[in-house]
């Protein structure tokens, strides 16, 4: 692909992606069914009598009863968040399947993000240091490449072909056949 054409392709791609994603964001998502809502709420809640299972997943009796309650409350017009809060007020934070984003537990969410940003920043500085200290060397090499004249290039190309041929019998054979 020619550089100009490839740039056009990239622009077109960016346009398509932008258009699609903004359309998807703006357009109202199709209405969730009650089953899906129940599952969404249930997967945010921990099954208290089970080991490592959410209310949505667990086959335990308590979880079944809770799913029934979730269904009833959603049917009566409560929002998903309301239902979760209902359970949180009854059982406390331990019913939540992920730490609540408030108070001390906010740390659970913030620390990984902070570490990642810190890591990225560190990487940035380290790379910048490397970059700075190596700039003269890089410039040298570029001029090195530019000074190679056509004769050199030709010699290198030949050598490359021969190395390929020495390495790979099939390659050599076909080339020889072509030549012959």
């Amino acid at each position: 692909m020619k550089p100009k054409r490839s740039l056009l392709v990239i622009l077109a791609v960016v346009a398509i992606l932008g258009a699609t994603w903004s359309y998807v964001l703006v357009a109202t998502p199709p209405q969730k069914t009650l089953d899906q809502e129940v599952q969404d709420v249930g997967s945010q809640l921990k099954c208290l009598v089970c080991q490592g299972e959410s209310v949505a997943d667990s086959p335990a009796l308590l979880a079944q009863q809770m799913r029934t309650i979730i269904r009833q409350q959603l049917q009566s017009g409560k929002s998903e968040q309301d239902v979760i809060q209902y359970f949180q007020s009854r059982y406390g934070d331990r019913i939540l399947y992920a730490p609540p984003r408030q108070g001390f537990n906010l740390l659970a969410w913030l620390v990984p993000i902070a570490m990642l940003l810190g890591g990225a920043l560190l990487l940035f500085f380290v790379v910048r240091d490397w970059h700075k200290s190596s700039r003269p060397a890089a410039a040298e090499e570029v001029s090195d490449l530019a000074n190679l004249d056509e004769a050199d290039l030709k010699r290198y190309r030949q050598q490359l072909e021969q190395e390929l041929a020495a390495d790979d019998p099939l390659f050599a054979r076909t080339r020889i056949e072509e030549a012959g």
Partner: protein
Amino acid sequence: MYFSDLGSISLILALGFAILTMVVAVLGATRNIPQLVASARRCVLAVAFFLLLASASLIASFLTHDFGVSYVAQHSSLSMPWYYTTAAFYGGQEGSLLYWALMLSVFSAVFVFTSRRAPSVLVPYVMATLMSIEVFLLIMLTTISSPFVRLPAPLPNGIGLNPLLMDPGMLIHPPILLMGYMSFSLPFAFAVAAMITGKLDSDWLRSIRRWTLAAWSIQTAGLMLGAWWAYHVLGWGGYWGWDPVENAALFPWLTATAFLHSTMVQERRGMLKVWNLGLVIASFALAIFGTFEVRSGLISSVHSFAYSAIGGYFLAFLCIVIVFSIGLFIYRLPRLRPEQEFVSVISREGSFLLNNLLLVGITFATLWGTLFPLISNAVSHQTLTVGPPFYNSVDGPLFIALLLAMGIGPLLAWRRTTLRTLWRNLGIPALAAAICAAILPLAGIRDIWPNIAFAVCSFTAGAILYEIWRGVRVRHSHGEPYPLALYMLINRYRQRYGGYIVHLGLVMLAVGVIGSHFFQLQTDAVLKPGQEINIAGYKLVYFGNIDQKYPDVEVVTAQLQVWHDGQLQEYIYPGRQFYANFGNQPASLIPITTFGLTDLYVFLDNWNGPAQATIRVFINPLVPLVWYGGLLMLLGGIICWWPEKRRQRIAKSIPSEGVPDPIGAGAVSGGEGTLVVARHAPQTQDTETDPVHQQANEEGVII
């Protein structure tokens, strides 16, 4: 004499030889006495022999139903089929420890047999490190956690194996996963040896990378088998629950993945030595941490059958490992200067740095989530859970970013890439992403996150396939038919194209995970005979329950018809198995029917008499891709790992000037551009440093 006595004696002898190896190997290396090193090698083989003998004794005790042995009585019974009886070997704590020790000694023996390939300076220290790990395991096996302890009086029959473990998947999942944990010992041993001797050259790098690749492949297999087992046995319609024990198995895998990538930077450019050593040590430490976490029961988990008192010992061992490694590290730091400098961020090594940042970020976030309940409990006395919703929203975006980096990385050349080359290479993958993003809303998928995630997947898949296609096309233009060209391409550049196959597998796996995460449907219903469940075009008609009683197991199943597209597809029998000694832990029988790429997953929740059942139905789209992707990753890992034949290269070297050129001078038609420069580069065994390939790659052209 019982087999168990033979086992006890073997363990003590193995311990003796392991200690002897450590002493003799270190003496041989420091005093420079080759005979001592040679005898250390033989000691390693002796350790392997005695551990094999001990394991054989334990298996013999199981197969002869020697219920005088406490471990045998607790983990087997007369009615178990022979294969579960044999597998009960690693079904409990003591046995799995013995299995671990056995595998470590077998791998050490393999190392001894292949040690001619490793730099000889390192060999004694590698052996000493491996055997010190072995000593730790053997001390536990001979003192507090022996599988050969005898009961005062033999029992008439054993208790039997935990029903969750009585599953074909269980025959292979734990041994592979334990082997995976264990296999991180070898890269660690190489790292320690390198730090002691200060020899971190390219030979060292090749050895450690091959062992890490082996460990990585085994761990991949273990993780995939674990997911498969969970999916087929646990009955909640998923395969990965971010359970602490699952996370523990993921940690070393993630850091090993990071190592396998950053090590390429060290190989090509001589940079990142410190970082790479850190990753190897972290992988081993995290493997030990995982074991500690599983055994200690510190963090509540579904894998509760593994709790025991040895957790503390693993914690102590972990501390020793960390302190020892950090000490060596600081001692050796002055020698670990980079050989070359960084040229540009937009380069292959730059993308590896990004890859490492993301992988380590995921490791840290997951570790933090796993440990947070402990921290929270200590600080605010709150019991809380960090479950899948946390990991999905923290790790999910990071994994998507990683997938994107995986697509961009191969498009970049080493050292630096001009923007022009980048644009040129980006075109086709970006187009794939755009087409995918545009088509999905038309197909009814209107959520933004799956759309972005699928678009990223198609970008990466497009980039990899395009890259492979370019290579195949160049070979094809030299007269090879396409299938042969593909084969030769992969065969000649195994690391590179094996890596691409791993990446393709991961993309496939990601598509499966995204599909089943965002588009799983489930419903449950209490059914009477004749009633039906309708979900997503599938109709299940319930007929009634069947109760079968066997001497030690009772099986309750519900009978259902599956209808799809107006046709009866099949009868299914979801059910439960009750083992006599584990009445409160019924194992599930879960029929999973695959229609195209969608799994119909049916679970018997509850039942009442012969004519009422609570049935849960999951529609899991794209889950089969998870398994295919896993297989592909494993295949790619094996291709990368597969030993090179020592090529008889350059025997007939370049003809001197004056000799007629048989090929005919001319430019190689190398895809989009032409090869510009092929400078003299040292010929090595390593395909990745193949001068043609490397140079071509720098120009953005693949041969």
